[in-house]
């Protein structure tokens, strides 16, 4: 009986304590985990979009970025799913399709159900690039070469079970040809180096990085793996325009999430405030200057997007 009473008292305390906590939330600085290294695209963008968090019209408390890199993001997300406190003071950046593809592949302790999305800030589509001196000028040229030399068109990307790999699988499926996808270690930059140096014939890369490489005169961009053309590259046609049935499943969406079990009031508060915070003018200006495409989505939109990705990726990766 004593135990029961104590238990009840504890529960009551936890409940009232929890409620009081959610009302004042946030009353101390918030931490946001980025599962890639400092200086990478995700880290860089996370720092920009959270820089106004301390403003009164935003959360009123600063957000500090903590990096937990390793194994393509698996280390950080594993930690977030199993060890992070679900109290609203520990947020994380998500990368779609990465973490969903990894959870389908297996060997990790998370899935789409382990997290609650808050809002999306960016969408970086994959693009198809060739070196500036390549003879290929359109996807038709690329596929003509691939049909003449089945399995010999080498093209680089940032690894397996990431957006670039998904794009590569979609391309093979839509064009009905066999290609040689070469995953690199060291992310998009290593994959881009392989294209510029001529180690491979072509490559899939991030739109933001490819845009920069094109400005530097190193690559040509032949197609965008997205539903619409991008504002940074209005002259580059989508894959669909070039007759390939490819949707936006490979687009790298970046946003904020919390662990499952976070109090509903906290989620509601964050879901209402964070998209506003992303829409800040200063944030938009910095993001544009860095060549990072923004795409703000609310919690409901992200939930629908996660579900759609889960279905597409399960189908695409089933054959692997």
């Amino acid at each position, binding site marked *: 009986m004593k135990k029961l009473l104590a238990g009840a008292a504890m529960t009551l305390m936890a409940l009232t304590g929890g409620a009081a906590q959610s009302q004042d939330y946030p009353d101390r600085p918030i931490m946001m985990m980025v599962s890639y290294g400092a200086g990478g695209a995700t880290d860089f963008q996370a720092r920009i979009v959270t820089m106004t968090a301390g403003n009164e019209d935003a959360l009123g408390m600063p957000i500090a970025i903590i990096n937990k890199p390793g194994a393509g993001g698996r280390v950080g997300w594993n930690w977030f799913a199993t060890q992070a406190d679900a109290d609203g003071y520990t947020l994380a950046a998500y990368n779609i399709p990465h973490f969903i593809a990894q959870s389908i592949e297996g060997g990790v302790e998370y899935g789409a159900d382990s997290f609650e999305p808050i809002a999306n800030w960016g969408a970086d589509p994959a693009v198809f690039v060739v070196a500036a001196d390549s003879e290929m000028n359109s996807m038709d040229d690329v596929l003509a070469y691939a049909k003449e030399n089945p399995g010999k068109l080498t093209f680089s990307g940032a690894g397996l079970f990431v957006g670039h790999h998904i794009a590569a699988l979609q391309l093979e499926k839509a064009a009905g040809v066999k290609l040689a996808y070469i995953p690199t270690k060291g992310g998009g930059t290593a994959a881009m180096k*392989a294209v510029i*140096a001529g180690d491979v014939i072509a490559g899939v890369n991030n739109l933001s990085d490819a845009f920069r490489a094109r400005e530097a005169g190193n690559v040509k961009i032949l197609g965008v793996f997205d539903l619409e053309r991008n504002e940074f590259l209005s002259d580059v046609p989508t894959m669909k325009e070039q007759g390939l049935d490819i949707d936006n499943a490979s687009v790298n969406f970046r946003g904020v999430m919390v662990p499952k079990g976070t109090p509903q009031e906290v989620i509601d508060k964050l879901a209402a405030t964070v998209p506003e915070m992303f829409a800040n003018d200063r944030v938009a200006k910095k993001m544009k*200057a860095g060549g990072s495409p923004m795409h703000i989505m609310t919690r409901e939109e992200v939930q629908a997007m996660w579900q759609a990705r889960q279905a597409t990726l399960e189908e695409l990766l089933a054959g692997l």
Partner: protein
Amino acid sequence: MEFIYYFGDVFTPVNFLLLLVGTIGGLILGATPGLSPTMAVALLIPFTFHLEAVSGLILLGAAYTSTVAGGAVSAILLKIPGAPANIATTLDGHTMAKKGEGARALQLSFLASAVGGIFGVLLLIFLTPLLAKWALAFGPSHLFWLAILGVTIIGSLDSASVVKGLLSGCIGLWLATIGFDDIMGAQRFIFHSSLGGGINIIAALIGLFAIPQVLTMFAKGRRNDNIEVIEVKKHAIGDAVRELFSRKRALAIGTAVGSFIGLIPGVGGQIAGLVAYDQTKKFSPEREEFGTGHSEGVIAAESANNAMVGPSLVPLLTLSIPGSPTAAVLLGGLLIHGIFPGTDLFDNHPEVAWTFINSMLIGQVLMCLFGLYIAGLAARVAQVPQSVMAAVVLGLSVFGAYSVQSSMGDVYVMAALGVMMFFLERFGFSAAPLVLGLILGPIAEANFIQGSMIANATDGLGSYFFSGGLNLILIAVVIASIIYSVMMELRQNRAQTVGVEA
């Protein structure tokens, strides 16, 4: 000669102040175990949000330059390399410090750093277009052979016995396979979730070098209350300058190897110091003295790791490809101001590009001056009683390992590796070859997998890895390096046998 016009910009009050802050701060951060150059630059990035593009880059460039040099302080005095670049510095530097010659070792190290560093930045200024071609010439097959070349020096590195050197190298290669494989995503030897990301190189460095030191110090402290106090000899800076320039061979090899290896994206920075050390040793008539506190060892290692700084930025500034983790962080610092490296940078923002490069040149000089100033003071660390020292080093080690990616897992890994190394050292194994294996394993593996995938899709493994000028040159160097090591070992054995018979 365009760069000369922008020297004035470095000396505006704000910029020069930032250069000073970056240099002094960088030396302190670099001397703290666990704070690698990449970390230091990443920590400073948020501050640059509020600065002009030029000022921000000056701060970052100064911090990069001086953290690399500052790493020598802990490498020499405590035998804890601040970053992989400083591993080779421990081999002779710490032995010198133990003999009371810490001041001399530090002075030589900062002077050599400055000479190497200035040469590297000058290469960046004058030969960038040419160097960019060289940086791109290394494809997967060449990087694979380069890593194998590194493996061939494992055996002869800081170890009395080639076999024990090779064995520690193998342990390192095995440790490198732990975790999720970055290319295929396969899981290897993950017994606990904190091993999922693999063995972090900084945590491993601290564990392997610092923990055996700490344990030895505690053991000694218990045994004997009147520990001998090392007399720290004073050393005139003029003598250090004279000594540096009388060791022209070590300085030249260190600088040359550092600049050329530093250029290669993805490999350079980590092994430049070790390769330069090994080459200098092979070409030196006094090679027997390496490892016993020979000044050539310090000069070669430190000139190499600072010579690397300038060229390592070439792929970033010209091709917009960051060749090292630190360069990747610098890229973020550029992008935040809307500046894209590449032609855009030099054509449209020459004042940013050249002021940044010039500031690194002046930063090298400042770094050297401050370094020499603290050398005499810092060398007194050797006089701190061992029991106190052990506690301080242990504290710094835990702090350093934790701060890499704010993870207690790294602290446990550091402690476990450290205890293992303590016992291995008792049997004559040493940490340097083990760490080299840990660094080279992933480079060799990733490039082999990638190269073989490309080869299988195109003209086959044989011709991909064994044809082409650069491949053949590298293979020839690998073979030469193996033959040299075997001959040295045989000669040494013969000398020992003769000695025993006599």
